[in-house]
């Protein structure tokens, strides 16, 4: 099993520009320390129609207003997430979608870097196996360590779960096992577990050995892989 940078076609170059935007890393850093409710706030605004901050503040009384829970630092983080999310929502529809995807990838990478050495976390990597044709699409995030490699694909919403991504993850795990290697595979979805379960129930592709990380349990990325 070997890891390799993905070839960069024109589309990948454009997307790399989105991934490299400072706002993506800053927003991911806010979400890495966020509560579950703050992450739902970000998801709602970035999916939303309205650009009025007061509208979103009223929608989340547990984060804003007189009965908001948490300390001053948490209140400040809620406000910062609101502003950062509005900035994403203010982009055109196509760019908004790309930024949201890049954000989930960056958030995943940042959380993983709390568990493993930052140098072990990579982005946009292909995984090569002897005698197996390489997948065209790279994995969003990988952890590359001898004997404990991990591969992650990242999705903004449950609807992004599809047969292709499930097959790709499970195939990589299977090929690694055939080489007597170990590769843990996971799908990170910035959406509710309930919605992901419904989506997965519609899939026939193998996913029993793929960990599903959802908006409620993102912090598990900082712990040992299952």
């Amino acid at each position, binding site marked *: 099993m070997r890891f390799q940078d993905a070839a960069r076609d024109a589309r990948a170059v454009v997307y790399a520009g989105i991934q490299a935007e400072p706002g993506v890393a800053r927003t991911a850093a806010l979400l890495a320390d966020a509560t579950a409710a703050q992450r739902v706030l970000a*998801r709602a605004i970035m*999916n*939303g129609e309205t650009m009025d901050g007061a509208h979103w503040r009223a*929608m*989340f009384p547990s984060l804003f207003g007189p*009965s908001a829970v948490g300390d001053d630092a948490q209140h400040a983080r809620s406000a910062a997430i609101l502003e950062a999310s509005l900035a994403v929502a203010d982009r055109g529809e196509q760019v908004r979608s790309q930024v949201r995807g890049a954000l989930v990838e960056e958030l995943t990478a940042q959380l993983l870097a709390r568990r493993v050495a930052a140098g072990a976390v990579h982005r946009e990597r292909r995984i090569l196996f002897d005698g197996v044709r390489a997948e065209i699409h790279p994995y969003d995030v990988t952890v590359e360590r001898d004997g404990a490699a991990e591969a992650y694909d990242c999705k903004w919403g449950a609807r992004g779960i599809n047969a292709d991504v499930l097959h790709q993850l499970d195939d990589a795990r299977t090929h690694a096992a055939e080489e007597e290697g170990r590769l843990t595979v996971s799908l990170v979805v910035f959406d509710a577990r309930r919605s992901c379960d*419904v989506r997965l129930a*519609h899939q026939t592709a193998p996913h029993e050995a793929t960990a599903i990380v959802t908006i409620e349990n993102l912090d598990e990325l900082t712990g040992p892989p299952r």
Partner: protein
Amino acid sequence: MSAETIQALIDRVLDAYAVLEELGEEIEDEWSYVADLSDAWRTRFDEVAAHRGAIDAPDEASAAIDVAIDEIRRIEDPHRAIDWLSTFPQVVLLAMGEQP
């Protein structure tokens, strides 16, 4: 406290949710997913109603949900409607002090 019970609040939520579901169903390839997704979240609301339906909803929960309903009424794109079939229940449940 408002005069509205949690049950009445959930009834309003489900009325708005049904409209969102109809919009999402316009994506024919996703029809069964939309139906199952909606059923799954209705089940969650039913659980909340069974436990807390008779009690009064806090004013700020009613106000928050009014704003959330206003947000989904603005949606015209069926793809975005499908996103909100998952997002809206999460927002509403948090406003009611429940875990999604």
